[in-house]
């Protein structure tokens, strides 16, 4: 019996690597710390009522962002380990198996469990405030989306200590990811982790499309909407068309692995190339899904800190919508070298180049928003300043890659690695950081320390160029991606060393950001204006942090930069609009079902990963039960009485004025 337990444990837990034992210990200590802390301070009830069951979009957004930061740390450690391994030729820091797992988890975590939740977090905290709504269209669904994401992310991360991580790259190309070449459970963790969080992403897409189309404040025509909600709309349209492809593709891969089907196998009529096509039909829109909201954020910030209206509003809207649609027509540029023939390659090269046009237009519009403006360089604007040149260069290399015959030389090389990191770090990460710094005061009621923030910015920026510019050169020297090590004879070591130093600087930059947050909390200087940046849009018209119902009375919108115009009117001596009579506010009730249902999904996934039907089936039954219970729950909403609203308002405004 004891022997059986021992064999089981040695297969179930990942063993043999001191790094992983270290992680085991730190995970156990962290969990113990949290449990003891919560119990000691008697905070379990508070945690359950205020956070775990909340349907408030602001709190859900904060949880998304917090989770994204933790995942940024995990993915960042993966990146630093890889760079350490590549710092010099013939290094033995990581054995090939471990290296393969690390580049796989780095990619998956950074895109799906860092960028996506960071983006959803920003959607959540800002879209309702910017369009003058009191919550999203489907608050319950929103909470469910978050917890599904969280379950999926935890399931995926668990593979690190239990069962073994996936090692087939972030898109898991078969046949290598098939059962024939990859019999372990790592790939199943990959499938289920992404599937569960993917359902959440799809629901968020639907939720925000409806929110933006149906919940705007009176008078806010679509063409008077701020640019960020527009970018969210274009991104969500891409989500609802692309995520079903991902779900279907991974479901087929799962059937191949679990049920012996032959969709993507080599034998039995399967075709791995079909998988590669399908996964990029999702994968390419996906990168635009994450970058479009960053464009929206930059538009808001450029306009605010140049103190000038956004130039070419309509152009910006059309450009984003065109990008959103074109992103579905370019997927085959990820495998020009598959040998599809000149016709196919020419078509996809052209569609890819077309995307450069609207993207270029956006850059021009940002430049001309600053033209004849009054630019100040607070941290959100600083990130935007870092973004523009970085993204221009990244866009240039993107156009070079789109030239199909030349791509035969760039493909799979470090040139490609440098390109996509440049657009994703320079575009997406800088964008989300800019957004976080910009909206932080609205979320928490105080600004982050500017001085430390500037250090973080410069470390990130210099580190970025040091890390990735040499990688372009490495690509031209013939270095291919995903190699665990290389010889002295190739002449790659200088550039690799520089690149590793750059990565280290970015690691330090992250520490600066953590310090910045800790420092700012410790030396809290409350922002009492609710409008610390002299903002232009509705979110700045209410106190920070926003009360649970956001707007005591719904604003009536007459122009694009409503709050800016309102301030101008007040400056010109027009009286503030007469207070509207406060009415009871209809709000959604908290619900424990999303977190419970997501836990059942977690068990279902875990059961299928290990082929434990005794766990998977009860998990599915639990999911169904949660749906039923929710369907028959009619007690889902309540009204905040006028008295309470008045009390809350005078309490906040009392401090405010």
């Amino acid at each position, binding site marked *: 019996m004891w022997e059986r337990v021992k064999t089981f444990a040695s297969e179930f837990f990942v063993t043999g690597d001191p790094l992983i034992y270290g992680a085991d210990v730190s995970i156990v200590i962290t969990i113990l710390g949290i449990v003891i802390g919560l119990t000691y301070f008697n905070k379990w009830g508070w945690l359950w009522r205020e956070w775990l069951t909340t349907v408030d979009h602001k709190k859900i957004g904060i949880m998304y962002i917090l989770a994204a930061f933790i995942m940024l740390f995990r993915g960042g450690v993966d990146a630093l380990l890889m760079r350490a391994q590549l710092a010099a030729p013939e290094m033995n820091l990581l054995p*090939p198996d471990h290296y393969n797992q690390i580049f796989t988890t780095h990619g998956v975590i950074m895109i799906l469990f860092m960028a996506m939740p960071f983006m959803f977090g920003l959607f959540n905290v800002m879209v309702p405030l910017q369009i003058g709504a009191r919550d999203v269209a489907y608050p319950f669904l929103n909470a469910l989306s978050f917890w599904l994401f969280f379950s999926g992310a935890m399931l995926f991360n668990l593979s690190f200590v239990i069962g073994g991580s996936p*090692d*087939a*790259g972030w898109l898991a*190309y078969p*046949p*290598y990811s098939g059962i*024939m*070449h990859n019999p372990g459970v790592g790939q199943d963790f990959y499938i289920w982790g992404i599937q569960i969080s993917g359902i959440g992403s799809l629901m968020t897409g639907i939720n925000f499309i409806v929110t933006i189309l149906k919940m705007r404040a009176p008078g806010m025509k679509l063409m008077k909407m701020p640019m960020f909600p527009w970018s969210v709309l274009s991104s969500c349209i891409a989500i609802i068309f692309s995520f079903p492809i991902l779900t279907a593709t991974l479901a087929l891969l799962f059937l191949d692995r679990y049920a012996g089907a*032959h969709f993507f196998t080599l*034998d*039995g009529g399967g075709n*791995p190339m079909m998988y590669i096509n399908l996964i990029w039909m999702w994968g390419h829109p996906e990168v635009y899904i994450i970058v479009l909201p960053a464009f929206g954020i930059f538009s808001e910030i450029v306009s605010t800190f140049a*103190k*000038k*209206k*956004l*130039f*070419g*509003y309509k152009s910006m809207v059309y450009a984003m919508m065109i990008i959103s649609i074109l992103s579905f027509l370019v997927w085959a540029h990820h495998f020009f*070298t*598959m*040998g599809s*023939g000149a016709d196919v390659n*020419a078509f996809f*090269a*052209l569609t890819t*180049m*077309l995307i*450069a*046009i609207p993207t*270029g*237009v956006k*850059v021009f519009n940002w430049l001309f928003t*600053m033209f004849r*403006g009054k630019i*100040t*360089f607070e941290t959100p604007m600083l990130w935007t300043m870092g973004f523009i040149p970085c993204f*221009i*260069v990244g866009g*240039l290399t993107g*156009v*070079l890659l789109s*030239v*199909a*015959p030349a791509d035969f*030389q760039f*493909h*799979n090389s470090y040139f490609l690695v440098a390109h996509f990191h440049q657009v994703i770090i320079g575009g997406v990460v800088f964008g989300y950081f800019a957004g976080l710094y910009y909206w932080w005061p609205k979320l928490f009621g105080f600004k982050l320390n500017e001085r430390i923030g500037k250090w973080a910015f410069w470390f990130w920026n210099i580190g970025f160029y*040091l890390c990735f*510019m*040499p990688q372009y050169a490495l*690509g*031209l*020297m013939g270095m291919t*991606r*995903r190699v*665990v090590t290389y010889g002295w004879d190739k*002449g790659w070591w200088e*550039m690799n060393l520089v690149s590793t130093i750059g990565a280290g600087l970015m690691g330090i930059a992250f520490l600066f950001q953590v310090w910045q947050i800790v420092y700012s909390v410790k030396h809290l200087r409350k922002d009492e204006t609710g409008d610390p940046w002299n903002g232009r849009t509705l979110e700045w018209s209410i106190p920070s942090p926003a009360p649970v119902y956001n707007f005591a009375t719904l604003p009536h919108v007459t122009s694009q930069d409503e709050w800016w115009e309102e301030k101008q009117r007040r400056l010109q001596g027009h009286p503030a609009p007469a207070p509207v009579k406060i009415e009871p506010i209809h709000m959604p009730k908290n619900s424990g079902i999303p977190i419970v249902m997501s836990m059942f999904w977690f068990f279902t996934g875990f059961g299928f990963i290990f082929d434990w039907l005794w766990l998977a089936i009860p998990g599915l039954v639990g999911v169904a039960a949660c749906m039923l219970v929710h369907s028959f729950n009619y007690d889902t909403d309540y009204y905040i009485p006028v008295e309470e609203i008045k009390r809350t308002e005078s309490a906040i405004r009392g401090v405010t004025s």
Partner: protein
Amino acid sequence: MKLPKARRWFASLSMLLILLLTATGCTEKMIILNPKGPIAEQQRDLMLTSLLLTCIVIVPVLILFAIIVWRYRDRKGRTSKYTPNWEHSTKLEVIWWGIPIIIITILAVITVKYTYALEPSKPLASEEKPLTIQVTSLDWKWLFQYPEQGIATINYIQIPEDVPIRFEITADSPMNSFWIPQLGGQMYAMSGMAMTLHLQADEQGDFWGSGANFTGKDFAKMYFDVKSTSKEAFNTWVSEVKASSPALTLDGYKKLVEPAASDVRTFSAFPEGLFEMTVTKYASSHNHGLSWKDIQKIDKQE
């Protein structure tokens, strides 16, 4: 306050310049920009042309960005104009929808032309009869068969200069990509199909190739040497291999397929139709409709 900021900008810009300089300092290592064959050469030219074309837009935009940010920064005693409500100019917007459209159109025409011209399966124009080399990606080594010469090698190719080489590429392993940077772009090596890639070396020399697509544990050991020699030297090498190397048998091939890296090896002969067999291995008619699992079962019973 303003001065250190200016200095910072200067510092970061000069940092970029230094990087560029160091990058150009090692151009001889950038083998892709130092091609040794007609395909790689045209691909290099195409890279430089497209770089130049995109730079026509990119460089002025970067300069414009620097000027605008510098000129319109908020400071005391500023004389530059401030127009908070200026938000539209049809003329300007037509210009910057127009410029990228023109550049992209030019680039598109060039790209399409070259996409057809450099289509890898197209034979190269040459008076010489092409030499065929059959490439199989295995876990984690390359098997090269010379059907016309009747020899085979592992992780080593020797080719005669100025003779077009017709590579037929497949895999008996997860998908890989066959790449000799100095001769030309890569082509996926996929099980169940034979891809064609035409390359040629214009001069004698030692080059190298690699497996460019991740295939698992020892994927990083799939480099191979490529030696381009005179025709005479090539023929001598073939006869030497024929005379002194062992033959590759079917059993030998089965051993080769087992996952492991390998040193350079040469074979004086290989089983007839081995490449074709590898390519058609998974076609169900050849397995009598049996799946991989069924075959495994039969193998075990045997």
